[in-house]
């Protein structure tokens, strides 16, 4: 993929990935074929800040986990009053990292 195109993508979506993954991500994108660019743009990555807000507002009902696509954890959270309230609070601190991790997995899947 064209380096300029990759840098544009990283500038627009950099906040969705962990800082330590950026170099690896850039290399992966440069090595990838140009035809993968459309797949990359439709990879459905999530904004960690949006997920944090969802977690604070609806995390108790597991909505944050459902949005991330982790349906099983969402159901567990929903049926246990947000893990007795503890899990809901713990997720306020973990959800941004988890979102970035899942975004990276989705980009890797799109590039495969």
């Amino acid at each position, binding site marked *: 993929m064209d380096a300029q195109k990759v840098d544009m993508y990283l500038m627009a979506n950099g906040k969705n990935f962990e800082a330590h993954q950026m170099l690896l991500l850039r290399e992966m994108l440069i090595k990838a074929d140009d035809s993968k660019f459309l797949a990359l743009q439709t990879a459905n990555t999530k904004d960690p800040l949006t997920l944090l807000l969802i977690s604070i507002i609806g995390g*108790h*009902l597991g909505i944050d986990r459902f949005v991330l696509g982790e*349906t*099983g954890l969402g159901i567990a959270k*929903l049926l246990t009053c*947000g*893990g007795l*309230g*503890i899990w809901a609070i713990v997720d306020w601190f973990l959800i941004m990292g988890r979102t970035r991790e899942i975004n990276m997995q989705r980009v890797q899947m799109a590039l495969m």
Partner: protein
Amino acid sequence: MQTAQRKFYLFLSLFLSMVWGWGAYNFLFGAANPLRVCLFRTVTGIPCPSCGTTRSVNALLHMHPGEAFFINPLGYVAVLAALVLPVWLMHDIFRRSNSCYRFYLSVEKRFNTKPVFAVLFFGLITVNWAWNIYKHL
């Protein structure tokens, strides 16, 4: 994949410890020192879909199945999960199997690919939630 599986079993162990710890606390001291852990209810004043599950489990432990159903039918699910999952976890640990993890993945996949399961599940949860609000749990 191995890491994801290990994380799942670690999480399941912690989750079950929390469930059994909470159950033991409520069975032993719950009547004298009731704790309210529902953030949603504390903030909004409205019960959440799973509010009343502990009371329902207590009613089941005291052999009042009708009362347990009236408080919150999710109490039955909680008792079933609290009894079956530890045995399944032990089975997987000692047999070095991953049947529980595979079952979890298959349920998750079914939910994500067949909307009918999700609609049915969330429909039931919504009805139960409406009933909880109506009962003023």
